[in-house]
């Protein structure tokens, strides 16, 4: 049989070779182990600042936080689950407000060359401003720390979505528009059935960038306005000199950020229909 001469070689090479993913996982675990080992030894031998807890101490404290996320012993002593929910609620509310402004505005701007050019200087100047620069203005205007946090997140969420929406609307394939024209589609029908679905992948990728930045900014905003949330927790634990809590919070913030990004990436694939953005 012809096969018999080939298959032994194949099976041998299979048993010795790992796939790229398997190799990467092994390397990841090795790097993680090395990092933890360096951290543990370094902390025990006092290589770092005396404040630096050991890896094992940090893991043990983290486990306490993570195993009981929903306790509530008053305003300054809540489980990490509550803290995250507070921050997430703020981010999602602010993000919703920002997106509700950015998407319709982006569509309007994208539909008219004149408006687009006229509004562009505003966007170009405001876009590079750190969202935190708006915070004092928010406090002054709104006189309320909660609303100021929402205000900052809303402003943060506007720019990437606005710019992407405008781009998506302006760059609809002219072939699609020609189809609509040859069929005699009304402006409204062209907008809802052709332009918006065509721009949807760009809009969602704008939303994805926005939610990422909003999640970055909420921590800083909560440190500044205080009161509650995961950002406030980080600062509060610094005041308590509880470094293990801060490290726990950093990891948890990273995980939630990753989760938000994944969610929008799924949404992106839903509206893409084979297109790449």
């Amino acid at each position: 049989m012809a096969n018999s001469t080939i298959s032994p070689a194949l099976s041998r090479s299979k048993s010795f070779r790992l796939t790229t993913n398997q190799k990467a996982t092994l390397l990841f675990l090795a790097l993680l182990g090395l990092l933890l080992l360096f951290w543990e030894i370094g902390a025990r031998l006092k290589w770092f600042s005396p404040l630096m807890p050991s890896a094992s101490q940090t893991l043990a404290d983290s486990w306490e936080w993570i195993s009981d996320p929903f306790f509530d012993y008053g305003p300054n002593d809540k489980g990490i689950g509550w803290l995250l929910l507070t921050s997430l609620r703020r981010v999602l509310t602010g993000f919703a407000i920002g997106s509700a402004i950015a998407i319709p505005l982006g569509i309007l701007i994208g539909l008219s060359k004149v408006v687009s050019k006229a509004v562009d200087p505003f966007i170009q100047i405001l876009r590079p401003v750190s969202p935190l620069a708006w915070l004092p203005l928010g406090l002054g205007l709104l006189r309320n720390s909660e609303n100021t946090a929402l205000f900052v997140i809303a402003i943060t969420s506007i720019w990437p979505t606005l710019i992407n929406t405008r781009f998506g609307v302006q760059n609809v394939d002219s072939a699609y528009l020609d189809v609509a024209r040859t069929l005699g589609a009304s402006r409204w029908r062209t907008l809802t059935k052709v332009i918006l679905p065509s721009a949807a992948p760009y809009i969602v990728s704008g939303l994805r960038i926005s939610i990422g930045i909003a999640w970055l900014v909420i921590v800083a905003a909560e440190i500044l306005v205080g009161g509650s949330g995961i950002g406030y927790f980080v600062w509060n634990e610094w005041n308590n000199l509880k470094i293990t809590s801060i490290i726990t919070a950093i990891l948890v913030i990273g995980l939630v950020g990753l989760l938000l990004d994944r969610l929008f990436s799924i949404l992106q694939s839903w509206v893409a229909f084979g297109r790449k953005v």
Partner: protein
Amino acid sequence: MTNSISIPASSSGTANMASSVHLSLQNISKVFAGKRDWMSKLQRRTSSDYVALKDINLEIEPNTFVSIIGPSGCGKSTLLNIVAGLSKPTEGAVLIDGMPVTKPGADRGVVFQNYALMPWMSVLENIRFAIETVDPALSKSRQMAIAQEYIELVGLRGAEHKHPHELSGGMKQRVGIARALAINPQILLMDEPFGALDALTRGFLQDEVERIWEQQRKTVILITHSIEEALLLSDKIVMMTRGPAAQIAQILDVPFPRPRHRETLDQHPAYHELKTAMELHLSRETRAVEAARI
């Protein structure tokens, strides 16, 4: 193969088969204006006017299949866009039964070179979008029935719920043809519809268009690069000169009886003579285009 295709009556009640409109292109010229404003002058980016088409006159009898063939860049697509109403002629007019064309309309179905299917719509939705846009008053079930009928006509049964990115190029253009026909236009305009397809698929689709045309006999204008395609499908072949200022060089009558089959087409006494005439014309024009570029 579906043998009994009934063409759905449009809302206005025009019945089956044989649309009978007379299409007339009168002294069509198209000039693309160059840039001469002061900004362009400042940036030294001025360009002169480009005359794409010059004095095109063409009468197309009802229910005729006309191919337009010519060297690349001769303005064939521009001419088709003018008939479609997507582009305005600088001079002259397109008349359909004596009425001038001012904008696109559902009396002209267009098949695009790059298919132009909406990626977010399934095959069925793409076709139904066209039907609903043209006749919003039609009941949804009727729209569905018409869409299904045309899906069947182009042989895509079973692929109704697929999206364009799941289809091959040939299947996409079948959808393109079904969408153009589903609105029951009087004139079908096809802009190099098979240009992006491989030779085998192109052949299948040409046969398919020949078969459908036997059933529907609409007025068709087909832009093509392919001599064989033009000979297989057309009643008349319009050969254009090279651009700029492209004109009609010659109009050939294709006398082959229908239905036509690609296997036996070359047995007709006139086949080789026509083919040679077209090859000569095209190679002469193409060589001149290339010489002009050196």
